[in-house]
Protein backbone atom coordinates (compact mmCIF):
# COMPACT_ATOMS: atom_id res chain seq x y z
CA UNK A 1 0.00 0.00 0.00
CA UNK A 2 1.41 3.39 -0.92
CA UNK A 3 2.09 5.95 1.80
CA UNK A 4 -0.65 8.58 2.01
CA UNK A 5 0.71 12.07 1.27
CA UNK A 6 -0.89 15.16 2.80
CA UNK A 7 -3.33 17.08 0.61
CA UNK A 8 -3.20 20.84 0.04
CA UNK A 9 -5.10 21.60 3.24
CA UNK A 10 -2.81 19.33 5.24
CA UNK A 11 0.25 20.94 3.68
CA UNK A 12 -1.07 24.40 4.52
CA UNK A 13 -1.73 23.39 8.11
CA UNK A 14 1.74 21.90 8.51
CA UNK A 15 3.42 24.85 6.75
CA UNK A 16 1.57 27.15 9.16
CA UNK A 17 2.87 25.22 12.18
CA UNK A 18 6.48 25.28 10.89
CA UNK A 19 6.12 28.96 10.01
CA UNK A 20 5.10 29.65 13.61
CA UNK A 21 8.07 27.62 14.87
CA UNK A 22 10.43 29.58 12.60
CA UNK A 23 9.02 32.84 13.96
CA UNK A 24 9.58 31.70 17.53
CA UNK A 25 13.03 30.44 16.54
CA UNK A 26 13.91 33.86 15.17
CA UNK A 27 12.74 35.49 18.41
CA UNK A 28 14.77 33.11 20.55
CA UNK A 29 17.71 33.26 18.13
CA UNK A 30 17.85 37.03 18.62
CA UNK A 31 18.56 36.36 22.28
CA UNK A 32 21.09 33.55 21.96
CA UNK A 33 22.87 33.82 18.60
CA UNK A 34 24.91 36.93 17.83
CA UNK A 35 24.69 36.37 14.04
CA UNK A 36 20.88 36.45 14.13
CA UNK A 37 21.00 39.51 16.37
CA UNK A 38 23.45 41.28 14.04
CA UNK A 39 21.38 40.55 10.95
CA UNK A 40 18.08 41.60 12.54
CA UNK A 41 19.68 44.77 13.91
CA UNK A 42 21.20 45.39 10.47
CA UNK A 43 17.77 45.39 8.83
CA UNK A 44 16.68 48.27 11.04
CA UNK A 45 15.22 49.37 14.35
CA UNK A 46 11.62 49.04 13.22
CA UNK A 47 10.47 46.83 10.39
CA UNK A 48 7.98 44.15 9.40
CA UNK A 49 8.58 41.14 7.21
CA UNK A 50 5.75 38.97 5.97
CA UNK A 51 6.07 35.34 4.91
CA UNK A 52 3.03 34.10 3.07
CA UNK A 53 1.88 31.30 0.84
CA UNK A 54 -0.34 32.10 -2.12
CA UNK A 55 -3.23 32.15 -2.63
CA UNK A 56 -4.84 31.63 0.78
CA UNK A 57 -2.05 31.38 3.33
CA UNK A 58 -0.73 30.62 5.85
CA UNK A 59 0.97 33.95 6.55
CA UNK A 60 3.20 35.23 9.31
CA UNK A 61 4.68 38.58 10.28
CA UNK A 62 7.95 39.03 12.07
CA UNK A 63 10.09 42.06 12.71
CA UNK A 64 11.15 44.56 15.33
CA UNK A 65 9.17 47.19 17.19
CA UNK A 66 10.48 49.32 20.06
CA UNK A 67 13.63 47.21 20.07
CA UNK A 68 11.67 43.99 20.59
CA UNK A 69 11.63 41.14 18.07
CA UNK A 70 8.14 39.81 17.43
CA UNK A 71 6.44 37.17 15.31
CA UNK A 72 2.83 36.19 14.90
CA UNK A 73 0.31 34.79 12.45
CA UNK A 74 -1.33 37.36 10.20
CA UNK A 75 -3.88 37.80 7.46
CA UNK A 76 -2.57 37.17 3.96
CA UNK A 77 -3.18 40.80 2.97
CA UNK A 78 -1.38 42.29 6.01
CA UNK A 79 0.93 45.15 5.08
CA UNK A 80 4.71 44.76 5.61
CA UNK A 81 7.94 46.47 4.59
CA UNK A 82 9.14 43.31 2.87
CA UNK A 83 6.94 40.45 1.68
CA UNK A 84 8.23 37.01 0.71
CA UNK A 85 5.35 35.31 -1.06
CA UNK A 86 5.55 31.66 -2.02
CA UNK A 87 3.84 31.10 -5.35
CA UNK A 88 2.11 27.92 -4.21
CA UNK A 89 1.82 25.51 -1.31
CA UNK A 90 3.80 22.65 -2.89
CA UNK A 91 6.98 24.73 -3.16
CA UNK A 92 6.41 26.33 0.24
CA UNK A 93 5.75 22.94 1.86
CA UNK A 94 9.06 21.62 0.57
CA UNK A 95 10.87 24.60 2.01
CA UNK A 96 9.14 24.49 5.38
CA UNK A 97 9.67 20.75 5.81
CA UNK A 98 13.36 20.67 5.02
CA UNK A 99 13.07 19.26 1.51
CA UNK A 100 14.37 22.41 -0.16
CA UNK A 101 16.67 25.20 1.00
CA UNK A 102 16.01 28.89 0.57
CA UNK A 103 18.75 29.25 -2.05
CA UNK A 104 17.26 26.40 -4.06
CA UNK A 105 13.80 27.93 -3.63
CA UNK A 106 15.13 31.19 -5.01
CA UNK A 107 16.85 29.40 -7.88
CA UNK A 108 13.60 27.62 -8.68
CA UNK A 109 11.56 30.85 -8.66
CA UNK A 110 9.37 29.48 -5.84
CA UNK A 111 8.81 32.88 -4.22
CA UNK A 112 8.55 36.56 -5.05
CA UNK A 113 9.75 39.52 -3.01
CA UNK A 114 8.19 42.93 -2.60
CA UNK A 115 10.55 45.42 -1.00
CA UNK A 116 14.27 45.96 -0.58
CA UNK A 117 16.12 42.98 -2.03
CA UNK A 118 19.34 43.99 -0.24
CA UNK A 119 17.64 43.13 3.06
CA UNK A 120 16.54 39.72 1.84
CA UNK A 121 20.03 38.30 2.24
CA UNK A 122 19.82 39.00 5.98
CA UNK A 123 16.51 37.15 6.06
CA UNK A 124 18.03 34.20 4.17
CA UNK A 125 20.95 34.01 6.62
CA UNK A 126 18.63 34.24 9.63
CA UNK A 127 16.38 31.48 8.29
CA UNK A 128 19.39 29.30 7.47
CA UNK A 129 20.75 29.68 11.01
CA UNK A 130 17.36 28.93 12.59
CA UNK A 131 16.93 25.89 10.32
CA UNK A 132 20.44 24.74 11.25
CA UNK A 133 19.20 24.61 14.88
CA UNK A 134 15.81 23.08 14.15
CA UNK A 135 16.81 20.46 11.57
CA UNK A 136 19.26 17.57 12.12
CA UNK A 137 22.73 18.22 10.66
CA UNK A 138 22.38 15.61 7.92
CA UNK A 139 19.18 17.27 6.69
CA UNK A 140 20.58 20.79 7.04
CA UNK A 141 23.54 19.79 4.83
CA UNK A 142 21.17 19.15 1.93
CA UNK A 143 19.56 22.57 2.35
CA UNK A 144 22.48 24.96 2.63
CA UNK A 145 26.18 25.18 1.90
CA UNK A 146 27.80 25.65 4.34
CA UNK A 147 25.64 24.78 7.36
CA UNK A 148 26.04 27.57 9.96
CA UNK A 149 27.63 26.36 13.19
CA UNK A 150 25.35 26.19 16.23
CA UNK A 151 26.31 28.66 18.94
CA UNK A 152 24.06 26.92 21.47
CA UNK A 153 23.06 23.27 21.46
CA UNK A 154 20.00 22.07 19.59
CA UNK A 155 18.05 21.00 22.67
CA UNK A 156 18.51 24.35 24.36
CA UNK A 157 17.44 26.09 21.17
CA UNK A 158 14.32 23.92 20.86
CA UNK A 159 13.50 24.52 24.51
CA UNK A 160 13.97 28.26 24.18
CA UNK A 161 11.99 28.39 20.95
CA UNK A 162 9.05 26.45 22.35
CA UNK A 163 8.88 27.84 25.86
CA UNK A 164 10.44 31.30 26.09
CA UNK A 165 8.32 34.40 25.54
Amino acid at each position, binding site marked *: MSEKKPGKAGKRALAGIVMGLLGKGIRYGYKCDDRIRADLDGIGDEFTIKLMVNPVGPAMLFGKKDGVVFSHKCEIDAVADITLAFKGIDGAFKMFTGQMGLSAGYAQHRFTVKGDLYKVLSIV*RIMNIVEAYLFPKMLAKTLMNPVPKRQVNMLRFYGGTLFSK
Partner: protein
Amino acid sequence: MLPKYYEFLNSVKIMSGEKALENIPHELDMLGAKKPIILTDAILAKTGALDKLTKVFDGWKMDVSEVFTDIPPDSSIKTINHIAEIFKEKKCDAILALGGGSVIDTAKGLRIVIEQGGDDVMAYMGLESLPRKKRVPFAVVPTTSGTGSECTNVAVIANPDKNVKMEFISYDLLPDFTVIDPAMTETMPPKITANTGVDALVHAVEAYTCLQKNPMSQAYAFAAMRLIVNYLPKAVAEGSNKEYRLAMGNAATMAGIAFSNSMVGIVHAIGHALGGVAHVPHGIAMSILLPHCMRFNLETLKSAYGELLLPLAGAEAYASTPKEERAEKAIEFATDFIKQFETVGLPTTLSAARVTEDQFEAIAKTAVNDGAIIVNPFMATKEQVIEILKAAF
Protein backbone atom coordinates in the same frame (compact mmCIF):
# COMPACT_ATOMS: atom_id res chain seq x y z
CA MET B 1 21.91 16.84 -15.24
CA LEU B 2 18.72 18.85 -15.66
CA PRO B 3 17.62 21.03 -12.75
CA LYS B 4 14.48 19.87 -10.95
CA TYR B 5 12.78 23.05 -12.11
CA TYR B 6 13.85 26.09 -14.07
CA GLU B 7 12.45 29.08 -15.92
CA PHE B 8 13.85 30.78 -19.00
CA LEU B 9 12.65 33.81 -20.93
CA ASN B 10 14.19 36.07 -23.50
CA SER B 11 11.50 38.01 -25.30
CA VAL B 12 13.85 40.68 -26.65
CA LYS B 13 14.05 40.96 -30.43
CA ILE B 14 17.72 41.18 -31.35
CA MET B 15 18.71 43.21 -34.40
CA SER B 16 22.39 42.59 -35.03
CA GLY B 17 24.68 43.79 -37.79
CA GLU B 18 25.92 46.73 -39.78
CA LYS B 19 23.39 49.52 -40.32
CA ALA B 20 21.06 47.89 -37.78
CA LEU B 21 20.34 51.37 -36.42
CA GLU B 22 18.42 52.14 -39.58
CA ASN B 23 15.65 49.70 -38.63
CA ILE B 24 14.85 51.35 -35.30
CA PRO B 25 12.17 53.78 -36.55
CA HIS B 26 10.31 50.95 -38.29
CA GLU B 27 10.35 48.78 -35.18
CA LEU B 28 9.16 51.64 -32.96
CA ASP B 29 6.47 52.45 -35.50
CA MET B 30 5.27 48.85 -35.39
CA LEU B 31 5.03 49.14 -31.60
CA GLY B 32 2.84 52.23 -31.96
CA ALA B 33 5.40 54.82 -30.83
CA LYS B 34 5.02 58.41 -32.01
CA LYS B 35 7.17 60.31 -29.54
CA PRO B 36 9.95 58.31 -27.88
CA ILE B 37 12.11 59.93 -25.24
CA ILE B 38 15.80 59.29 -25.93
CA LEU B 39 17.97 58.63 -22.89
CA THR B 40 21.74 58.86 -23.21
CA ASP B 41 24.69 60.47 -21.45
CA ALA B 42 26.59 63.69 -22.06
CA ILE B 43 29.66 61.94 -23.52
CA LEU B 44 27.65 60.05 -26.13
CA ALA B 45 25.86 63.28 -27.01
CA LYS B 46 29.23 65.00 -27.46
CA THR B 47 31.00 62.23 -29.41
CA GLY B 48 28.37 62.01 -32.14
CA ALA B 49 26.72 58.70 -31.17
CA LEU B 50 23.46 60.52 -30.42
CA ASP B 51 23.57 62.24 -33.81
CA LYS B 52 24.05 58.89 -35.54
CA LEU B 53 20.91 57.66 -33.77
CA THR B 54 18.64 60.66 -34.35
CA LYS B 55 19.67 60.84 -38.02
CA VAL B 56 17.98 57.51 -38.76
CA PHE B 57 14.61 59.11 -37.94
CA ASP B 58 14.88 61.59 -40.85
CA GLY B 59 11.70 61.42 -42.90
CA TRP B 60 9.77 59.37 -40.32
CA LYS B 61 6.66 60.84 -38.74
CA MET B 62 8.13 60.38 -35.31
CA ASP B 63 9.07 63.14 -32.88
CA VAL B 64 12.53 62.47 -31.40
CA SER B 65 13.10 65.94 -30.04
CA GLU B 66 12.87 64.89 -26.40
CA VAL B 67 16.40 63.90 -25.39
CA PHE B 68 17.67 63.50 -21.82
CA THR B 69 21.47 63.41 -21.50
CA ASP B 70 22.04 64.18 -17.82
CA ILE B 71 22.35 60.59 -16.62
CA PRO B 72 24.95 60.01 -13.88
CA PRO B 73 27.48 57.10 -13.99
CA ASP B 74 25.30 55.27 -11.42
CA SER B 75 21.64 55.43 -12.41
CA SER B 76 19.71 56.97 -9.52
CA ILE B 77 16.13 57.06 -8.31
CA LYS B 78 16.16 60.85 -8.36
CA THR B 79 17.10 60.93 -12.04
CA ILE B 80 14.47 58.35 -12.89
CA ASN B 81 11.69 60.15 -11.02
CA HIS B 82 12.76 63.41 -12.70
CA ILE B 83 12.71 61.87 -16.19
CA ALA B 84 9.30 60.34 -15.43
CA GLU B 85 7.94 63.84 -14.84
CA ILE B 86 9.37 65.00 -18.18
CA PHE B 87 8.00 61.91 -19.93
CA LYS B 88 4.48 62.66 -18.71
CA GLU B 89 4.69 66.42 -19.20
CA LYS B 90 5.96 66.14 -22.78
CA LYS B 91 3.49 63.34 -23.55
CA CYS B 92 6.16 60.88 -24.65
CA ASP B 93 4.98 57.35 -25.45
CA ALA B 94 8.13 55.21 -25.78
CA ILE B 95 11.67 54.88 -24.43
CA LEU B 96 14.83 54.62 -26.50
CA ALA B 97 18.03 54.12 -24.51
CA LEU B 98 21.45 54.74 -26.03
CA GLY B 99 24.34 53.93 -23.76
CA GLY B 100 25.94 51.53 -21.30
CA GLY B 101 24.63 49.93 -18.13
CA SER B 102 23.72 53.12 -16.32
CA VAL B 103 21.65 54.56 -19.15
CA ILE B 104 19.91 51.24 -19.74
CA ASP B 105 19.13 50.73 -16.04
CA THR B 106 17.77 54.29 -15.89
CA ALA B 107 15.54 53.47 -18.86
CA LYS B 108 14.34 50.29 -17.14
CA GLY B 109 13.51 52.27 -14.00
CA LEU B 110 11.65 54.84 -16.09
CA ARG B 111 9.60 52.13 -17.75
CA ILE B 112 8.62 50.73 -14.36
CA VAL B 113 7.38 54.12 -13.09
CA ILE B 114 5.50 54.94 -16.29
CA GLU B 115 3.88 51.52 -16.64
CA GLN B 116 3.09 50.91 -13.00
CA GLY B 117 1.86 54.46 -12.31
CA GLY B 118 2.83 56.56 -9.31
CA ASP B 119 5.82 58.85 -9.21
CA ASP B 120 8.49 56.99 -7.28
CA VAL B 121 10.38 53.98 -8.61
CA MET B 122 11.25 52.96 -5.02
CA ALA B 123 7.69 51.70 -4.57
CA TYR B 124 8.39 48.88 -7.03
CA MET B 125 11.53 47.29 -5.60
CA GLY B 126 11.49 43.55 -5.51
CA LEU B 127 11.75 40.22 -7.24
CA GLU B 128 9.18 39.05 -9.80
CA SER B 129 6.48 41.17 -8.21
CA LEU B 130 5.50 43.66 -10.94
CA PRO B 131 2.11 42.94 -12.51
CA ARG B 132 1.87 43.43 -16.28
CA LYS B 133 0.33 46.82 -17.15
CA LYS B 134 -0.10 48.70 -20.42
CA ARG B 135 3.26 48.39 -22.17
CA VAL B 136 5.46 51.34 -23.04
CA PRO B 137 7.53 50.50 -26.14
CA PHE B 138 11.17 50.21 -25.05
CA ALA B 139 14.28 49.86 -27.21
CA VAL B 140 17.95 49.72 -26.29
CA VAL B 141 21.07 50.51 -28.27
CA PRO B 142 24.08 49.41 -26.20
CA THR B 143 27.30 51.38 -26.68
CA THR B 144 29.52 48.96 -24.78
CA SER B 145 29.87 45.19 -25.13
CA GLY B 146 29.74 44.02 -21.56
CA THR B 147 26.75 44.60 -19.32
CA GLY B 148 24.31 42.58 -21.42
CA SER B 149 21.70 44.82 -19.82
CA GLU B 150 19.90 45.09 -23.16
CA CYS B 151 18.64 41.55 -22.57
CA THR B 152 18.40 41.21 -18.80
CA ASN B 153 15.53 41.33 -16.33
CA VAL B 154 17.64 43.18 -13.73
CA ALA B 155 18.18 46.85 -12.93
CA VAL B 156 20.42 48.24 -10.21
CA ILE B 157 19.51 51.78 -9.21
CA ALA B 158 21.24 53.93 -6.61
CA ASN B 159 19.50 55.72 -3.80
CA PRO B 160 21.92 58.62 -3.19
CA ASP B 161 20.17 59.78 -0.01
CA LYS B 162 20.82 56.44 1.69
CA ASN B 163 24.04 55.71 -0.25
CA VAL B 164 22.74 52.27 -1.22
CA LYS B 165 21.86 50.51 -4.44
CA MET B 166 18.38 49.11 -4.94
CA GLU B 167 17.73 46.02 -7.00
CA PHE B 168 14.80 45.32 -9.30
CA ILE B 169 14.29 41.90 -10.88
CA SER B 170 11.33 41.37 -13.17
CA TYR B 171 10.67 40.02 -16.65
CA ASP B 172 8.88 43.33 -17.22
CA LEU B 173 12.30 44.99 -17.43
CA LEU B 174 13.13 43.25 -20.70
CA PRO B 175 13.16 45.72 -23.62
CA ASP B 176 11.05 45.05 -26.73
CA PHE B 177 14.09 45.09 -28.96
CA THR B 178 17.81 45.79 -28.93
CA VAL B 179 20.14 46.91 -31.68
CA ILE B 180 23.70 45.60 -31.85
CA ASP B 181 25.37 47.83 -34.39
CA PRO B 182 29.18 47.81 -34.51
CA ALA B 183 29.11 51.51 -35.39
CA MET B 184 28.06 52.17 -31.80
CA THR B 185 31.10 50.51 -30.19
CA GLU B 186 33.96 51.03 -32.66
CA THR B 187 35.31 54.13 -30.91
CA MET B 188 35.42 52.48 -27.47
CA PRO B 189 39.01 52.80 -26.09
CA PRO B 190 41.04 49.56 -25.64
CA LYS B 191 40.94 49.63 -21.82
CA ILE B 192 37.15 49.98 -21.73
CA THR B 193 36.80 47.35 -24.46
CA ALA B 194 38.89 45.01 -22.32
CA ASN B 195 37.13 45.52 -18.99
CA THR B 196 33.61 45.48 -20.41
CA GLY B 197 34.53 42.34 -22.36
CA VAL B 198 35.77 40.66 -19.20
CA ASP B 199 32.49 41.67 -17.52
CA ALA B 200 30.69 39.69 -20.23
CA LEU B 201 33.05 36.75 -19.65
CA VAL B 202 32.23 36.78 -15.93
CA HIS B 203 28.50 36.86 -16.71
CA ALA B 204 28.97 33.74 -18.82
CA VAL B 205 31.19 31.93 -16.29
CA GLU B 206 28.85 32.64 -13.37
CA ALA B 207 25.69 31.92 -15.38
CA TYR B 208 27.16 28.57 -16.41
CA THR B 209 28.04 27.52 -12.88
CA CYS B 210 25.71 29.14 -10.34
CA LEU B 211 22.82 27.44 -8.50
CA GLN B 212 20.20 28.71 -10.95
CA LYS B 213 22.00 27.38 -14.03
CA ASN B 214 19.85 25.59 -16.58
CA PRO B 215 20.47 24.03 -20.00
CA MET B 216 19.15 27.07 -21.88
CA SER B 217 21.25 29.63 -20.04
CA GLN B 218 24.28 27.35 -20.22
CA ALA B 219 23.94 27.15 -24.01
CA TYR B 220 24.03 30.94 -24.26
CA ALA B 221 26.89 31.16 -21.76
CA PHE B 222 28.94 28.55 -23.62
CA ALA B 223 28.52 30.35 -26.96
CA ALA B 224 29.34 33.70 -25.34
CA MET B 225 32.58 32.34 -23.84
CA ARG B 226 33.72 30.99 -27.23
CA LEU B 227 33.15 34.38 -28.86
CA ILE B 228 34.84 36.30 -26.05
CA VAL B 229 38.05 34.25 -25.98
CA ASN B 230 38.27 34.43 -29.76
CA TYR B 231 37.36 38.06 -30.31
CA LEU B 232 38.03 40.15 -27.22
CA PRO B 233 41.84 40.32 -27.71
CA LYS B 234 41.26 41.23 -31.36
CA ALA B 235 38.69 43.92 -30.53
CA VAL B 236 41.08 45.40 -27.96
CA ALA B 237 43.94 45.45 -30.48
CA GLU B 238 41.89 46.67 -33.47
CA GLY B 239 38.83 48.50 -32.25
CA SER B 240 37.76 49.81 -35.65
CA ASN B 241 37.24 46.29 -37.01
CA LYS B 242 33.49 45.84 -37.38
CA GLU B 243 33.62 42.04 -37.36
CA TYR B 244 35.35 41.98 -33.98
CA ARG B 245 33.00 44.60 -32.55
CA LEU B 246 29.94 42.76 -33.76
CA ALA B 247 31.21 39.48 -32.32
CA MET B 248 31.75 41.11 -28.93
CA GLY B 249 28.33 42.80 -29.10
CA ASN B 250 26.74 39.41 -29.68
CA ALA B 251 28.83 37.79 -26.96
CA ALA B 252 27.80 40.39 -24.38
CA THR B 253 24.13 40.02 -25.32
CA MET B 254 24.29 36.23 -25.12
CA ALA B 255 26.04 36.38 -21.75
CA GLY B 256 23.31 38.82 -20.66
CA ILE B 257 20.57 36.42 -21.72
CA ALA B 258 22.39 33.64 -19.87
CA PHE B 259 22.68 35.46 -16.54
CA SER B 260 19.25 37.02 -16.81
CA ASN B 261 17.95 33.47 -16.55
CA SER B 262 20.34 32.03 -14.02
CA MET B 263 21.77 35.05 -12.20
CA VAL B 264 25.43 35.44 -11.31
CA GLY B 265 27.41 34.72 -8.13
CA ILE B 266 30.14 35.79 -5.75
CA VAL B 267 32.26 37.65 -8.33
CA HIS B 268 29.37 40.02 -8.91
CA ALA B 269 28.43 40.21 -5.24
CA ILE B 270 31.92 41.44 -4.32
CA GLY B 271 32.21 43.46 -7.53
CA HIS B 272 29.03 45.41 -6.77
CA ALA B 273 30.38 46.12 -3.29
CA LEU B 274 33.75 47.26 -4.69
CA GLY B 275 31.84 49.67 -6.91
CA GLY B 276 29.68 50.97 -4.07
CA VAL B 277 32.37 51.31 -1.41
CA ALA B 278 35.61 51.92 -3.35
CA HIS B 279 34.14 53.21 -6.64
CA VAL B 280 36.00 50.62 -8.72
CA PRO B 281 34.46 50.49 -12.22
CA HIS B 282 32.45 47.30 -12.60
CA GLY B 283 34.45 45.73 -15.43
CA ILE B 284 37.72 46.36 -13.61
CA ALA B 285 36.32 44.79 -10.44
CA MET B 286 35.30 41.74 -12.47
CA SER B 287 38.78 41.47 -14.03
CA ILE B 288 40.47 41.55 -10.64
CA LEU B 289 38.08 39.22 -8.83
CA LEU B 290 37.30 36.41 -11.28
CA PRO B 291 40.42 34.23 -10.71
CA HIS B 292 40.28 34.62 -6.91
CA CYS B 293 36.56 33.86 -6.69
CA MET B 294 36.99 30.84 -8.95
CA ARG B 295 39.66 29.57 -6.53
CA PHE B 296 37.25 30.15 -3.65
CA ASN B 297 34.53 28.15 -5.39
CA LEU B 298 36.85 25.47 -6.75
CA GLU B 299 36.09 22.75 -4.24
CA THR B 300 32.32 23.08 -4.71
CA LEU B 301 32.43 23.67 -8.46
CA LYS B 302 35.29 21.44 -9.58
CA SER B 303 33.18 19.55 -12.08
CA ALA B 304 31.47 22.64 -13.56
CA TYR B 305 34.77 24.52 -13.84
CA GLY B 306 36.25 21.48 -15.57
CA GLU B 307 33.54 21.83 -18.23
CA LEU B 308 34.51 25.49 -18.73
CA LEU B 309 37.87 24.47 -20.12
CA LEU B 310 36.19 23.48 -23.41
CA PRO B 311 34.69 26.88 -24.30
CA LEU B 312 37.62 28.75 -22.79
CA ALA B 313 40.66 26.89 -24.09
CA GLY B 314 39.16 24.95 -27.00
CA ALA B 315 38.67 21.30 -27.89
CA GLU B 316 42.34 20.31 -28.15
CA ALA B 317 43.32 21.70 -24.76
CA TYR B 318 40.19 20.15 -23.21
CA ALA B 319 40.84 16.71 -24.70
CA SER B 320 44.52 16.67 -23.78
CA THR B 321 43.92 17.66 -20.14
CA PRO B 322 43.09 14.85 -17.68
CA LYS B 323 39.59 15.26 -16.22
CA GLU B 324 40.80 15.94 -12.68
CA GLU B 325 43.04 18.78 -13.87
CA ARG B 326 40.54 20.60 -16.07
CA ALA B 327 39.08 22.86 -13.39
CA GLU B 328 42.53 24.14 -12.36
CA LYS B 329 43.43 24.63 -16.02
CA ALA B 330 40.25 26.62 -16.60
CA ILE B 331 41.17 28.95 -13.74
CA GLU B 332 44.71 29.30 -15.10
CA PHE B 333 43.30 30.10 -18.54
CA ALA B 334 40.94 32.74 -17.15
CA THR B 335 43.78 34.30 -15.14
CA ASP B 336 46.14 34.50 -18.12
CA PHE B 337 43.37 35.67 -20.45
CA ILE B 338 42.65 38.65 -18.22
CA LYS B 339 46.31 39.36 -17.51
CA GLN B 340 47.02 39.96 -21.20
CA PHE B 341 45.00 43.20 -20.96
CA GLU B 342 47.41 44.73 -18.44
CA THR B 343 49.18 46.09 -21.54
CA VAL B 344 46.23 48.41 -22.19
CA GLY B 345 46.10 49.55 -18.58
CA LEU B 346 43.67 47.04 -17.05
CA PRO B 347 44.48 46.66 -13.33
CA THR B 348 44.53 43.06 -12.13
CA THR B 349 45.01 43.69 -8.42
CA LEU B 350 42.98 45.69 -5.92
CA SER B 351 46.03 47.74 -4.95
CA ALA B 352 46.50 48.72 -8.61
CA ALA B 353 42.83 49.78 -8.63
CA ARG B 354 43.59 51.99 -5.60
CA VAL B 355 41.50 50.03 -3.14
CA THR B 356 42.85 50.29 0.39
CA GLU B 357 42.86 47.56 3.01
CA ASP B 358 40.88 49.67 5.44
CA GLN B 359 37.95 49.43 2.98
CA PHE B 360 37.84 45.61 3.13
CA GLU B 361 35.46 45.44 6.11
CA ALA B 362 32.87 47.71 4.45
CA ILE B 363 33.24 45.94 1.08
CA ALA B 364 32.76 42.52 2.68
CA LYS B 365 29.76 43.68 4.71
CA THR B 366 28.09 44.99 1.55
CA ALA B 367 29.02 41.93 -0.52
CA VAL B 368 27.36 39.41 1.80
CA ASN B 369 24.10 41.33 1.45
CA ASP B 370 24.21 41.44 -2.33
CA GLY B 371 21.51 39.41 -4.06
CA ALA B 372 24.04 37.71 -6.34
CA ILE B 373 25.50 35.76 -3.45
CA ILE B 374 22.33 33.76 -2.86
CA VAL B 375 22.90 31.66 -5.99
CA ASN B 376 26.61 31.21 -5.44
CA PRO B 377 26.97 27.50 -4.62
CA PHE B 378 28.76 28.36 -1.38
CA MET B 379 27.27 31.08 0.81
CA ALA B 380 30.37 33.08 1.74
CA THR B 381 30.71 34.79 5.09
CA LYS B 382 32.08 38.29 5.62
CA GLU B 383 35.36 36.81 6.84
CA GLN B 384 35.70 34.65 3.72
CA VAL B 385 35.05 37.67 1.48
CA ILE B 386 37.83 39.52 3.31
CA GLU B 387 40.18 36.59 2.58
CA ILE B 388 39.30 36.84 -1.13
CA LEU B 389 39.96 40.59 -1.04
CA LYS B 390 43.34 40.00 0.63
CA ALA B 391 44.28 37.49 -2.07
CA ALA B 392 43.27 39.98 -4.76
CA PHE B 393 45.16 42.86 -3.17
